[in-house]
């Protein structure tokens, strides 16, 4: 499997938790969220963020809010829900233990 393929497969599973992690630091609007994720090379473009947000909204992990931005224009912000926060906490536990196990394996026996 190519490096890109491995990377895509892995990102697919963690992307929504990265969105939750970003939103747990404060609500963000779509483009802001997209830019944060693209900068970390987690998504290729906004085109994959909105479909993901649609599912996360459906599952009650995030909720859109209409608020006035600094420029005075109403803007669509996303906020993490209580359920989203719980899911993020669960993911954090799983990830920490999984990452430790995988790291240990990759490092090999000492």
């Amino acid at each position, binding site marked *: 499997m190519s490096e890109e393929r491995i990377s895509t497969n892995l990102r697919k599973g963690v992307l929504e938790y990265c969105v939750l992690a970003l939103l747990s630091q404060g609500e963000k609007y779509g483009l802001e969220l997209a830019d944060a994720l693209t900068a970390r090379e987690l998504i290729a473009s906004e*085109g994959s963020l909105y*479909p*993901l947000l*649609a599912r996360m909204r459906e599952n009650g992990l995030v909720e859109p809010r209409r608020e006035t931005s600094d420029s005075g224009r109403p803007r669509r912000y996303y906020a993490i829900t209580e359920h989203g926060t719980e899911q993020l906490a669960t993911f954090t536990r799983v990830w920490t233990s999984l990452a430790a196990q995988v790291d240990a394996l990759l490092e090999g026996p000492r």
Partner: protein
Amino acid sequence: MTPSTTTTEQTTMATDTEQSYLRAVTKRLRALTPEQRAAVLDDVRAHFADAAEAGRTPEQAVEGLGDPATFTRRVQAELGHDAGRLDRIRRVLQWTAVGMAVFTAMFETFLWPEGMTFGLLVPYRGDGFAVVLWSLVPALVTALPLVVPARARTGTAVAVVAVLTVLALAAQMTFVPTAMLAWAALVVPVAARHGRPAPAWRITGGALLMLPGALMVTGAIAGSWGLEADAVAYIAALLGLGLLITVGRSWTGAVVAAVGVGVLVWATLDLGMLVLAVWWAGGLFLTIGLSHALAHAAPRRADRA
């Protein structure tokens, strides 16, 4: 004045690009609930506004989202709408057409042995096994789109529909229901490609079912024939079936399809003067009912853990 003109032009262009993108997305998301669709459209609108504020052109905003077809496919995939839906519709209709061809062949061979031909084209006279095999040729032809490779499928389906239509109209009119189902296998997946078909489809279908009843009523009013009690019952049944189709629910199509099967079986058992008309009516009910039921079936959701 030049800067302000430029700004106005940019705003207008933004609106055009955005509007056409929104229209394209709306059209392709009919399978979603109104709430889901509205939320996705709100995201897209917000995206255009935020991109403009960040100094990006509408074209750059579109570039980020991807073309409407790709974007909506991603939305549907995330929301668990199943991609196999159209293929399932096509296969069910095509298989039903094959079944119909087999049923028609039985009808021809066993119930109308004297009229056993594909009639005018090949006045074949034989007996026994050869006749049965020969009568199954239309069924084999109808099955072709189900067995050819995917890239040859549409071409094959079109060719098969053409052959069946010529066979049905020019030679053996008992194959009209088979031809109708093969047509449906071609047309319904296209009509239902963005979710439930536009209301015009079911209104046309309903009107088509009501037409014979309406003609009977008109004839009676004009004095061509009297309205007997059983004629009134048939007319009421036809109008009722037509109304069922105009309701955008899957089960109403299933009811009409079941009536169609009933009529077809009845036509094979009771060979009267009207048998061909009844046979066609049964085929029409089955075709429209099944198409309607499949196109309006609730989208299956992929299981998620």
